[in-house]
Every structure is written in structure tokens, then in C-alpha cells.
């Protein structure tokens, strides 16, 4: 769950990481009002859940309220990497003496938290890391260890914070790590951490990602108006529908509806379709042990997608049960009906029972199964993928 800059800064405030006195506005009028009250030159920052905002013209300055309103009108029309700007963060314009980089993330290979610091902050930090790795300081911290002030002080000095501000810098490092641990963060980045002309250290930007799987223990995030949301960007209507139903789903630009079991085969099944000359219309994950109702909803998403010409199904019952899978398919067939050809393979946990359910239903209502080809363990999955590509070609023709 990625936070907007203004949300991240609310978290910073809670941990006494210094940020500027700021306002958030959604319309040019709100911007005008805010800047009138602030009555100083300001910077207007588009709030989008993606990087590269500055280069895309999403950050502008304004001397007064009238100029701010005009600038806001432009910004609110912007789309940055496909994300429309809906909110603007308004902050005082300050003179900057130095930009630092400070970030905390998880090194998954070493299973450690890592603090990364540099005296060379700003947009080109990744380039710095690649070309001048000695300008980047890293410190690994075990999850069950505290960071002591002396470690932070050393980092602050190594990143080039001047002697008289090093203790203040150290405090910011300790607080950022404390926040990281307290809120189950995956990323907490201050880039840049600025040294202002009047000698203050301030977090000028905030990029924070929290672990969706740990939000259950942070009910207080709601007080910060931080809501659960997509990792990045806006969703298509179908993706929104799927999210409401709790199904991981992404629209792709092909024509084969992917109806897999498990995220792993969800990914590899798409590769196979490509491999045999087709193009998937979506990515989908059933999740572990989906209920029949969920299976039915997955099919609804595909059947109602006009791009889908044929459906490729695969069910290898592990934690999921083939009888539940079969029941789900039947719910879909009875309540919604299938309008596309579908080929699938079903095996694994409770597969005999699944087959029995299908055969019974087919005996009762053969028409319902008219567009369905189903296979068991005897057919390699590659054959099913090939057949799905054929079906889509036939349907598309």
C-alpha cells in the first residue's frame, strides 16, 4: 500500500520527523484560499502514486494566490504516467542549501532492514548509487534490534550532514526507522531531505509503502486518512469490480480469458498462451482454496469482458478442492450462463468428485455444456493452452 506524499508526511509528523507546514487542496479555489492564507511564495506538488512527477511537470511554484490558482488549474488537468492529478500539496517555497537522500527498506536476500543514506539526494540518486557507490552509505539492522543513536550519528556524519546538525540528523534517522518498524513499512524514503538556507533539516518529500498484510494491526492509520489502496495507479472498471470481490485481477490486451488456479500458474499460464501464439486478456489469481461463489465470480469477470474470445481454465486442486471448483462453475453456468468457448483441465484434490458433479449436471442439461471442453490429468496442460489459442482464433475469425 503506497501512501500519497501528504499521507506519508502525516506519519512523519507523528514521529517528529520535521516537515513543512502544508495544505492539501483538490480544486483551484481551494488552492487559492490556502495560498491566500499562507501569504508566502509556495510550491504546488501534484499528488500521484508514481515517481517522476517533477520531470513530468507536476511540481510548480507560485508567488501568490492568483498565480497558484492558475498553476493549480493546469496541474489538475495533468495525467502523470496515466495517473490523473486529483490533489495538490501546497508547501512554503524555501531556499535549499543541500539535498540528502535517506531511505529505509528491506533487503530480502539478507533478511535485514537497510538504512540507505547519501549526501547526494534528489532525483538522480539511483544513478549515484550505480556510478558512485561510495557516495551511498548503508547500514543493516536486524528486525529485533534497535538502532542506537551512535549508529545514527555516524550515518548522519557519513552522509555529510554538517557537524552542528548531525545530532538532529541522527534523530531523524532513528525516528524514520522507528516509524518503519512500528507501521510495518516496506519502504520509507525521504528524498530529498533538505538543508534549508536558514539551517534546518526538513523532509521535503515522503515516499512510504506499508505492508498490506499487516494493516490489521494498525487501525490508527484510519485517523491519518490513509486508506487501503492499490499499490500504484488507478484501476479499470473490471479491476475495481474484481478488487471489490477480493480477486487479484489485471486487464491485459489479449483475447484469451485466463481462468487459472493459483498465482504461479496464473503467471506461467500466460507465458504458455504467448508461447503458442495467443495473447491473454487478463491476469487472475483464485487465491488459496476459493469458494464456489468466488469461482463463479471469476468466470463472470471473464464472460462479461468483450475482449475475451475464449476461456482457458486450469485447476490443480491443492488447498483448493475440485468439487468446490466444479460447484462454482455450475453456479456460474446456472445463474449467468457461458457465452464464450471454454477449455479447461481439472485434477488434484477431490478431482473424482468434481468430475462426478460435472457429469451429473451434463446429463441433466447437456446444452449448458455445449461450449465446454474439459480434461483430466491425462492431457498435458500445454495441450489445453494450445486449444485455447485455437478457440480464440476461431471465435475471433
Amino acid at each position: 500500500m503506497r501512501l500519497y506524499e501528504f499521507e506519508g508526511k502525516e506519519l512523519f509528523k507523528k514521529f517528529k520527523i520535521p516537515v513543512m507546514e502544508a495544505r492539501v487542496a483538490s480544486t483551484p479555489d481551494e488552492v487559492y484560499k490556502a495560498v491566500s492564507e499562507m501569504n508566502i511564495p509556495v510550491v504546488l506538488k501534484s499528488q500521484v502514486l508514481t515517481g517522476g512527477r517533477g520531470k513530468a511537470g507536476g511540481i510548480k511554484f507560485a508567488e501568490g494566490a492568483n498565480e497558484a490558482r492558475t498553476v493549480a488549474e493546469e496541474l489538475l488537468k495533468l495525467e502523470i504516467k496515466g495517473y490523473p492529478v486529483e490533489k495538490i500539496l501546497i508547501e512554503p517555497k524555501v531556499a535549499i542549501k543541500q539535498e540528502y537522500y535517506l531511505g529505509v527498506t528491506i533487503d530480502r536476500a539478507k533478511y535485514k532492514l537497510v538504512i540507505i543514506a547519501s549526501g547526494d539526494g534528489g532525483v538522480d540518486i539511483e544513478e549515484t548509487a550505480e556510478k558512485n557507490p561510495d557516495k551511498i552509505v548503508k547500514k543493516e539492522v536486524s528486525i529485533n534490534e534497535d538502532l542506537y543513536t551512535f549508529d545514527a550519528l555516524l550515518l548522519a556524519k557519513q552522509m555529510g550532514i554538517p557537524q552542528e546538525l548531525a545530532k538532529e540528523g541522527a534523530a531523524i534517522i532513528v525516528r524514520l526507522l522507528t516509524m518503519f518498524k512500528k507501521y510495518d513499512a516496506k519502504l520509507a524514503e525521504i528524498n530529498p531531505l533538505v538543508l534549508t538556507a536558514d539551517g534546518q533539516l526538513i523532509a521535503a518529500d515522503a515516499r512510504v509503502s506499508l505492508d498490506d498484510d499487516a494493516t490489521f494491526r494498525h487501525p490508527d492509520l484510519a485517523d491519518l486518512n490513509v486508506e487501503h489502496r492499490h499499490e500504484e495507479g488507478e484501476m479499470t472498471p473490471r479491476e475495481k469490480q474484481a478488487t471489490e470481490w477480493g480477486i487479484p485481477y489485471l486487464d491485459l490486451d489479449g483475447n484469451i480469458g485466463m481462468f487459472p488456479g493459483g498465482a504461479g500458474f496464473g503467471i506461467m499460464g500466460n507465458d504458455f498462451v504467448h508461447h503458442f501464439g495467443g495473447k491473454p486478456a487478463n491476469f487472475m489469481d483464485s487465491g488459496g482454496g476459493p469458494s464456489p461463489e468466488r469461482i463463479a465470480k471469476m468466470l463472470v469477470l471473464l464472460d462479461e469482458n468483450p475482449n475475451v474470445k475464449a476461456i482457458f481454465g486450469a485447476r490443480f486442486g491443492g488447498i483448493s478442492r475440485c468439487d468446490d471448483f466444479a460447484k462454482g462453475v455450475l453456479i456460474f453456468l446456472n445463474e449467468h450462463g457461458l457465452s464464450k468457448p471454454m477449455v479447461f483441465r481439472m485434477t488434484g484434490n477431490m478431482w473424482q468428485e468434481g468430475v462426478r458433479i460435472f457429469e451429473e449436471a451434463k446429463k441433466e442439461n447437456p446444452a449448458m455444456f455445449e461450449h465446454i471442453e474439459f480434461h483430466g490429468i491425462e492431457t498435458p496442460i500445454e495441450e489445453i493452452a494450445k486449444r485455447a489459442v485455437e478457440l480464440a482464433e476461431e471465435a475471433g475469425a
Partner: protein
Amino acid sequence: MAILCDKNSKVMVQGITGGAGKFHTERMLAYGTNIVGGVTPGKGGQVVAERPVFDTVYECVQATGADVSVIFLPAKFVKEAAIEAIRAGIKFVVVIPEHIPIHDMLYVREEAVKYGTTVIGGNTAGLITPGEANLGIMPDIAFQPGRVGTVSRSGSITYYVADTLTRTGYGETSCIGLGGDPVLGSTFAEILMKFEEDEKTKAVVMCGEIGGVYEELACEVIPKMKTHVLAMIGGLYAPPGKRMGHAGAIVEGKMGTAQDKLNMLANAGAHPCKTFLDIPDTLKKLGV
């Protein structure tokens, strides 16, 4: 032979009294897995599938000699359950549930390293040593004793690979689900080294995925291995994933495509496969 669990392992189930725990305990028993008991705090003294239930892992280990544990609990209880198992002397812990908070897994990993315990998962389908033990949620239909090991991030891929190996007569020594969560109890490299030490395993199929760092880490051990490694990577046709911020790029390096991962593995000495059908072809060429 096998890795991590065989017919002599004494297996316990954490969360044995829950719906999934009970269901899969019965399935695992039906497969012949040597399940000796289970734990649900507060339910000690009960009996599930004719196996005793204890309040704590310590009591279960004392009474039954359990050395392997399979966890079927809601994600938020996994941290304590896994650490309890590790501290009670369990040497192999299988974390079935998905969506384990990442920080929790870091705590679990610290304990696992300290006590020399192997943890797989979260979000793993488990491990199966065909004909000997089935830990977790894998369907037994696809598996047959044999000479190839498998390790995969995804349960469904494990089934398909085993299905292929079984159909083509190679069979499997042990099949491991590394897990699908972003931070995992073990790395590909660690599991590959365990297969390397297993005499019966003539080749290992490792199936990775786009994203994450575990495939890249495997490239450090593959050149040292005598056992053949076959590699598949899911997401060959997917766009490259996104790194988390600059920090992610600085710590984990530039994000590669699935094809980059496959190339790295090939350079390290692994044999790349694009579909499951490539696997028996490759094994044949290698004379396995």
C-alpha cells in the same frame, strides 16, 4: 532418500483443530505421513484424527518426539507459532498460510538461523516426498517416487512439474514449495544445496517467477553443484515489475525481466526450460 522430511520424520500440525488443519491432517495421514500430534493453544487434551492435541509445541515435542511442523493458522498467528516451533527444537517448519506480514517473517528468519531450522513459506503448498510424506496441501495425484527434485515459488507450478515428471517416468525425490509471499523462510539457494547433498536426487527443477531476488541468489550456488539444475521462470511475457522506490533499486539492484533471470540462471549453469514439456527433453539429454 529425500530432503527435509521422509517416512521417519515425526510430523506435527499447528492449528490442527481448525477447519483447514483438520481437513489436511486427515489427507496427510491418508497419504501415510507420520503425523504424531498437533497443537492448538487452549485445546490441549483433545484428539483430532486419532492424534493427541497439545497446548504448546514444547509439550507436543516432549510427548511425541515431533521434529517437523506444518502450520495451518491465520496469518497473524504465524510469527509466534513458527518461533514456538523453532525454539521447541523443530527442525523443519512448513508455513502454509499466505499474507504473512513481512516484518513477522524477518523475526521468524532470525530465529530460524539462530536455531538452524529450515522454514518454508509463507504461502507454500508444502513439501511432498512421494510415497513417504506429504506436508501441506499438495494433491497426491501428481507425484510418484523417483529421481528428480523440484523447488518452486508456486504450488500450482509444483503440481504441473511433478505431473510432467511422473508422466514421463522420472518421478520425484522431494518437491518443495518455497512459497509465494514476498519474504520467504528459505531461499532457492538453500534448498538447492539440500538437494545437492541428497544422493538420490539426480537433477532439480527450480521454478522461479518474475519479481523478487531469490532466483538471482540461486546463481551463487548453482556453479558449485554437481546435481543438474533445470530452471523455469514464470512471467517471460510479462512487463518488468516495478521496484519499490530508489531504496529497492539501490539494495536489490536493477529489476530484471523474467528473461533476464532465466539468462542469469543459464549463465550460472542451469538448463533453461520454457514449458513443462521441455523438462523431460532436457533430462533425457542430460542422461538423468
